[in-house]
């Protein structure tokens, strides 16, 4: 039903496309385009018939590898697989610093250490720290940069090369990212080729994959992003078609309406990608959110968010296209009970639909405005719980046989206790470890203080920088890279 409705939308009203080459590709495939004018821009109403979309879907690879500096960290995405990978994102404007301070109670005169928080503007140093931290978090499977850099020496012309380098130099897991300026794409790809060891090696082990927000909801194709999408498709590198409508403003708020529209938008992006280069690796990326009714901001920790995202993941599976989904964003401004409730809720629900990638999962607060490294450490634990929850069931024939043997043995033992049995599971890592940041105070939640201490240990770990000769080659061939990012200088 969703499929039929989405295809109906692509035919009528169709998409409003601002990119001439995309229109041309769609027309050649059988779509009908009508020129129009939207403000100062040329645009086309494009009616895409079902067969055009179906043909495009036929050429999408069902299995995609997201490469990594360390090949052991590669992520293999299978459209019909059940493995869910969690990653970071998005580019937040603020980094939340936590500083423990001692206060004296006016009531009882007791001293207490309270975490005090301060929001700082994002910068390159924070981005490097977040990539290094992401390397340490065992449940983080891929990295999308989560800090928007606002340094004085960062410009439109040098931003992309610097943020890509900052990420790639600090993490050996797959890096997925958007490119802000189309003119910088070639430089970024060149950098990735140097790291991978050449063009062919990069195709085999794409250490970078891309995100293009090609759709502006509702149903509009943006010119500059479409250009990037087509270029990346022709390079043969993985790309996420990311569309993020807001239920209640840029999309219907009800489940059916939202999912039909966001699905149509994702299909439009995938179709353009495949028309540009049939068989290019493409990922169905849907980031549908709901609007708050009091201020129309995005809202992530609500049931509708789960409905939207789970439906989209199921649609991607239906089309046999690997999926990129979302969970773990806190609407809360700071770490605490609200953030824990909102995050745990979506970490638990969304993976039921088995999207291959779940982004926005680490450290995001205040919708996607703030990144908190302490929160990322906490989220790492929550995601560990979600991964454990969604593991393959332990109920099977082999376990049944083992159970008979164990119970028979224990019932004939002196104290009839299963400690020995539990120990075996404990040592094999089959028992979940519990909450690692538990405090021992009887009148204060010490979680954040304990996480803060743990974060310091993680941040003090060795950096996994690129080898010196690779860094040198990148710096020699990439104009605009800031020398302060070079760890060997």
């Amino acid at each position: 039903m969703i499929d039929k409705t989405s295809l109906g939308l692509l035919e009528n009203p169709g998409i409003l496309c601002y990119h001439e080459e995309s229109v041309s590709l769609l027309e050649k495939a059988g779509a009908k385009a009508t020129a129009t004018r939207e403000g100062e821009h040329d645009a086309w109403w494009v009616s895409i018939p079902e067969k055009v979309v179906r043909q495009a879907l036929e050429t999408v690879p069902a299995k995609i590898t997201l490469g990594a500096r360390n090949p052991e960290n590669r992520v293999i995405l299978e459209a019909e697989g059940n493995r869910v990978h969690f990653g970071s994102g998005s580019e937040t404007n603020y980094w939340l610093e936590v500083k423990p301070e001692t206060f004296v109670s006016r009531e009882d005169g007791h001293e207490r250490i309270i975490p005090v928080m301060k929001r700082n503007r994002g910068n390159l140093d924070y981005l490097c720290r977040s990539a290094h931290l992401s390397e340490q978090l065992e449940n983080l499977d891929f990295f999308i940069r989560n800090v928007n850099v606002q340094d004085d020496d960062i410009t439109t012309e040098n931003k992309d090369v610097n943020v890509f380098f900052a990420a790639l130099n600090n993490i050996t897991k797959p890096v997925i990212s958007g490119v802000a300026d189309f003119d910088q794409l070639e430089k970024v790809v060149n950098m990735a080729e140097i790291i991978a060891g050449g063009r062919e090696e990069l195709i085999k082990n794409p250490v970078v994959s891309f995100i293009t927000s090609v759709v502006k909801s509702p149903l509009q194709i943006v010119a500059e992003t479409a250009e990037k999408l087509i270029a990346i498709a022709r390079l043969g590198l993985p790309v996420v078609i990311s569309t993020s409508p807001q239920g209640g403003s840029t999309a219907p708020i009800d489940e059916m309406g939202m999912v039909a529209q966001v699905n149509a938008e994702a299909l439009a992006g995938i179709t353009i990608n495949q028309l540009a280069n049939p068989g290019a690796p493409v990922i169905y990326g849907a980031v549908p959110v709901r609007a708050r009714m009091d201020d129309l901001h995005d809202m992530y920790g609500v049931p509708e968010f789960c409905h939207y995202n789970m439906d989209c993941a199921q649609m991607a599976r239906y089309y046999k296209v690997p999926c990129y989904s979302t969970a773990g964003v806190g609407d809360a401004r700071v770490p605490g009970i609200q953030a824990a409730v909102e995050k745990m809720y979506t970490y638990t629900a969304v993976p039921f639909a088995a999207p291959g990638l779940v982004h926005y999962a680490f450290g995001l607060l205040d919708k996607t405005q703030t990144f908190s490294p302490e929160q990322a450490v906490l989220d790492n634990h929550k995601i560990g719980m979600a991964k454990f929850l969604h593991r393959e069931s332990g109920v099977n024939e082999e376990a049944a046989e083992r159970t008979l043997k164990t119970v028979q043995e224990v019932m004939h033992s002196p104290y009839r206790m299963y400690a020995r049995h539990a120990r075996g599971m404990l040592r094999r890592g089959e028992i979940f470890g519990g909450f690692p940041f538990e405090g021992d105070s009887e009148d204060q939640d010490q979680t954040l203080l304990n996480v803060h201490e743990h974060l310091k240990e993680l941040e003090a770990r060795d950096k996994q920088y690129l080898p010196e000769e690779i860094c040198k080659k990148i710096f020699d061939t990439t104009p605009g890279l800031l020398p302060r990012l070079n760890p060997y200088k």
Partner: protein
Amino acid sequence: MSKELIGKIVDNVLQGRRNKDDEGIEEGMAGEPGVAELVQDAIDSGIDTDEILLNGLSRGMEMVGQKYETGEYFIPDMLTAAEAVEEGMKVMEPHLVKGEDGSGKGKVIMATVEKDLHDIGKNLVSIMLKGAGFTVVDLGIDVPAARIAEAAEEEKANLVGLSALLNTTMSNMGDVVKELEKKGLRDKVKVLIGGAPTSEDFAQEIGADSYGKDAFAAIREAEKLLK
């Protein structure tokens, strides 16, 4: 040879292996001699029982305790290690020096008091007491106060360990203290209590000698009381 054998006993206590059929913490150990077989070998080789007890079984258990303190070991590791020590003690028993009663650090009567059917805590303490070198006579659950006092007398026990999980049954612990007094045993038999609703204050209130807030505290208190 002696050193090597004692070292193996320590290792197998750490692995929690009662005998050759057990797996250890590390996989693939089944089939190798466990604590029971190693203790028998040690005795057959003429190694002094004190040496086996102190440098083998007790040393192993001490190391298990240290590993627990540092977070490397968990409760199931402690329990399986204590079980392995118990198996070793069974092998040792007939060979202990004549004249010794073989009760090691002391004899303890363990029981869950009358009308209370909970035994996890009591079993945990019993197993760990054995592992720590005490002799334990476990009377089980729902045991009347008079029966506990009677057993303390018969067994010439040094300590009575009482467990209760319910606040409706904890008062029966006081009855045990009274029964021991009636029999004139109170100056010879110490009383240690534990269980979720109990506390240090409650122990004082009923005239018990000590309170263990958990199994480890109970072992420490038992050692202090029978020093």
